[in-house]
């Protein structure tokens, strides 16, 4: 078995506005040390970020005949970072009809991630 090199990754935690500076040491895929987090969520985030980085996606979807021409939406959970642009592209092609309520599911499973897209704003009929 070949010697794998130790690698140090530094990045900012995005879980809350404090923005802790995280330092993760890993050898190959194996994490050997995590420093800099101030809460359990930060530690969880550090692991997630070096193994499978994920983000919550927010955008707007067109609405026809509503009190506003768009409804704001987000992914119910973070989705893989690599899927963000594909998800936005898909959503930019949709056109919805009012009424839409906060929490309404707009798409059941966005681009095969298994995560639904939900509305974050109410849009009534005109």
């Amino acid at each position, binding site marked *: 078995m070949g010697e794998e090199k130790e690698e140090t990754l530094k990045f900012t*935690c*995005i879980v*809350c*506005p404090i923005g802790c500076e995280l330092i993760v040491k890993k050898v190959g895929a194996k994490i050997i040390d995590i420093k800099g987090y101030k809460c359990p969520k930060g530690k969880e985030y550090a692991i997630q970020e070096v193994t499978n980085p994920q983000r919550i996606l927010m955008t707007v979807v067109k609405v026809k005949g509503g009190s506003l021409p768009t409804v*704001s939406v987000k992914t119910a959970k973070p989705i893989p970072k690599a899927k963000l642009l594909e998800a936005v592209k898909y959503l930019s092609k949709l056109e919805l009809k009012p009424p839409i309520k906060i929490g309404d599911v707009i798409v059941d499973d966005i681009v095969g991630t298994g995560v639904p897209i939900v509305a974050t704003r*109410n849009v009534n009929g005109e």
Partner: protein
Amino acid sequence: MKKIYADVLVLGAGAAGLAAAAKAKEFGAEHVVLLDEKEELGGVLPQCIHPGFGLHYYREDLTGPEFAFRLYEKVRNLGVEVHNQAYAIELIPRKYDEKIVRASSPEGLLDIHAKTVIFATGARERQRHEIGIIGYRPIGVYTAGQAQTMMDLYGMMPGKEIVIVGSGDVGLIMARRFALQGAHVKAVIEILPYPGGLTRNIQQCLIDFGIPLYLSHKVISVNGTKRVEGVIVGKVDEKLNTIPGSEFEIKCDTLIVSAGLLPRVELLMRAGAFMDPATKSAVVNEYLETTIPGVFLAGNALVINDLVDYAAEQGEAAATSAIKFIQEGGFPSCVQKSVVKGRNVRLIVPQLITGENDVFFYGRVSQPEEDVYLKVPEVGMKLRMLRVKPPEMLRFKIRKKQFENLEEDKITISVEPRSEG
């Protein structure tokens, strides 16, 4: 002219104003009137579609519209009298317990006779001319907030090739929004040697999308006569002057100006409230009361906040004070002590204290520093802080008990290196 009476009149239905109106009603004020210039309530929240709101206030991670909706539902269920599309044009302090706010509204002119007034009027964005960007005035120059309104309320793209000036949180958030919608964000330009926004926003809005950040650079001028064709950028020295010969052009079709916010308190200024040049708003005591008795401030109108949670918290505090003012006929006319800005403190709120209450302070440093003490020697307070940065607000509490032995007529708040004691 229509006459309205109010115990508590709240101006502005953003986070601070909605929280203030709800709190005033919950505390038993009979006539709570809420005035807002827009059709939809919530201030800027409905267009802030990103998460990160409410982690303190609701202990949940919400988007702006969701945060606004929760507050708005509360205000509606409590029976606050709401006047939207109404614009306050004058504040007339008439008597100790009577202020008249004149407003223009769809019902005509309104004269609101209020025992107390809470200014939760928010802030406006600084414009291109206020940061000295010269050149033509083509289509394609927008403030970050205008771009956000276009994209996230009306679904329109302001452009395809974007340069953003200013690395405050609003600018960073918009950089990500543009990148997500498929625009090419070519640069974020920051005149100071450090970023203006929260570190996590540098990570998730710029690094995530590979957007370059130019620190110690400024946008000098705009090229293009009909539509923006590019911007001239230069490097600046420590005095923020352009270094000759450092200029270069970045081609773009859109320039987004995100150059900070200014409290909207013109009515207070005209009515004679004492102003603080550091906060660019009115001076307040710990009740968040201005020098006009019974007139309070909250949210970004009081001090530009990092977090919506603080704005809502200040709205509630102002409402609590307003109720106390009504019930007790004002505050005891005790001597107010001044809060003095010491080393590396750029602004602090409140600027006056009585020493008779617990006080929450909000402040900002002038320079980033590491390993420091936040000191208030007059009350023997010394807080260790690992780092301070101008974009991150200082927020701390001094308890009533700590003021007991305060003999001076002032307290001094300073940030000092730990090595010096």
